[in-house]
């Protein structure tokens, strides 16, 4: 299929059993829930899915479940970033063999390296597979390691399968610099906001977002995108202000609070693996109060 990345795309969390082992059954229910409630694409496992806390074997097994559950209803991309780049290449090959529709990868973790090393890495990764490649830019989490407009343009010229960027700087200048470098070279290049800050990003020409709160409030996410796409800015502001309030709750020790929120919505997904904490009963109570105040409990689906 031609890969179209647009609207609110969901990146599911990873449901775990009480003993912290993967809960495959709930994972299938969650992926299916996202597809049924308006996800225009699925992407897994983002950091929100505790990618760093899963073994490579677990990531492969769960990726296969996700791909099978989505069953081509929408495109699914597999996040292949890992500390060791050998694992990244392995996960990318596995995604292709498992019939994923794309891969997504961040700039390599931890090390300080010259900007040119980012270019080299993405060329090697992009040419190692036939799948479309989505790059992931997150300067605030990676101590200033980031894509520039120039580098994005060079990668587009070098890689026919480089089709999109998840851009998580939340910064007008950085987002727009990459967008305006990419669009003249590849008009359907999709700039996807890191989480659903759709109001500023769609206004600037963005394609959509990878969602933070989709497991809690899919209706709000979908309506926000629609308001932006319809240029109903007054309504979009109202919805964005509300969704951003939620993000401020969930951002803290992400995704512990998000998983806590899922309990309230009748879609429990289990604990969070250490070193991240699992949301305490008090934290869950606080989240419930906020969800109530923001009208989420009244307007969003409960249960699966």
């Amino acid at each position, binding site marked *: 299929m031609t890969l179209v990345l647009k609207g609110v795309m969901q990146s599911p969390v990873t449901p775990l059993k009480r003993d912290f082992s993967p809960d495959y059954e709930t994972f299938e229910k969650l992926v299916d829930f996202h597809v049924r409630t308006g996800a225009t694409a699925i992407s897994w496992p983002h950091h929100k899915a505790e990618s760093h806390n899963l073994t490579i074997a677990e990531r492969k097994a769960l990726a296969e479940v996700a791909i099978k559950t989505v069953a081509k209803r929408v495109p699914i991309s597999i996040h292949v970033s890992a500390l060791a780049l050998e694992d990244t290449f392995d996960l990318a090959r596995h995604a292709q063999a498992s019939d994923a529709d794309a891969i997504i990868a961040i700039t390599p973790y931890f090390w300080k390296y010259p900007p040119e090393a980012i270019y080299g890495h993405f060329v090697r990764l992009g040419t190692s597979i036939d799948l479309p490649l989505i790059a992931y830019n997150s300067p605030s989490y990676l101590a200033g390691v980031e894509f520039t407009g120039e580098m994005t343009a060079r990668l587009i010229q070098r890689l026919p399968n480089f089709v999109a960027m998840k851009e998580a700087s939340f910064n*007008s200048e950085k987002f*727009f610099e990459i967008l*305006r470098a990419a669009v003249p070279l590849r008009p359907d290049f999709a700039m996807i906001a890191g989480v659903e800050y759709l109001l*500023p990003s769609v206004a*600037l020409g963005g394609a959509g977002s990878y969602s933070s709160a989709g497991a809690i409030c899919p209706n709000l996410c979908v309506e926000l995108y629609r308001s932006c796409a319809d240029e109903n800015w007054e309504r*979009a502001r109202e919805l964005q202000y509300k969704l*951003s309030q939620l993000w401020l709750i969930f951002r803290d020790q992400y995704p512990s609070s998000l998983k806590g929120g899922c309990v309230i919505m009748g879609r429990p997904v289990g604990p969070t693996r250490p070193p991240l904490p699992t949301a305490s009963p008090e934290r869950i109570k606080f989240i419930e109060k906020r969800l109530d105040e923001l009208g989420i409990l009244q307007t969003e689906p409960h249960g699966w």
Partner: protein
Amino acid sequence: MTAFKFGLVHAPLTPFSESGVDYERYGRLLDFHMRHGAEGLALPMHAGESVSLTAEERQALVEFAISHVGGRVPVIVNVSEAGTAIAASLAAHAKRAGASALIASVPYYWTPPQAMLVEHFAAIGEAGVLPFFVFNSPSEMSEVEIGSPAVVNLLDRLPNFAGLIDSSLDWQYMIEVVTVARAARPDFQFVSGTEYMISAGAIGATGLLSPLASISPRLVRELYNICRRESYKEAYGLQEDAAILFRALRDVGVPGLKAAARSFGRDCGNPRPPLPALDAATAKTLVEQLALVHSMKVEPRGWT
């Protein structure tokens, strides 16, 4: 008091001669801005080398400007200083001199915690009872940000606290501050401190404080008008031009703005030490870069 609307405000350069501020040129420069779309003048901003003026010079400059403008547009006075009492005395002076509003950034140098920011701003706002705008520009101010709880505190304390000018370009920050401030006071004004007007406008900015208006007043005027109509798609090309200018000028700062203004026939002298004048080669490169920007072809040359 709350009737003051920020609108499109230009931040003029300060022309210097050997003996100090060149008032003859300054008067012509203020006239130029008013002829080319300024709905207000903010002075002296960083673009006007506020930091390099003595307190006496700042007061004389403000008195001159208010008298010269003669009520044609509001004059908004920047009273940012390191010391609270010094800033407060500038505020009291601005009020006596007939300013229409005040601007203050976080104190220079001290990197104060949030509670100190509230005290600092409250003292300034109480000393000069005019519509008061705080200026959030963390990249210029050692990453000190005016947090949204401080904004809410200040709204409680200061009836004349009218709004926030933002140069952070940070979507998370901007949306949070607009959300909580407008919940506390619905007519709280949010003003963009950079020409990234599409994203700021979508988020809810109703004003623009423009340093680039020194060289591209027509572009800024048109971009502002289209964004105030919320026709963001139509604004894309102008936003692109503004982004190119923003980036070209960012690295060369006030010396770059002065070199560019000189190349457009408005010689405002050299910047004051410690800022060096742009060397000839860098100035030439800058002027060539600017000449490539589509919008610059129709910008005014000379003083008229």
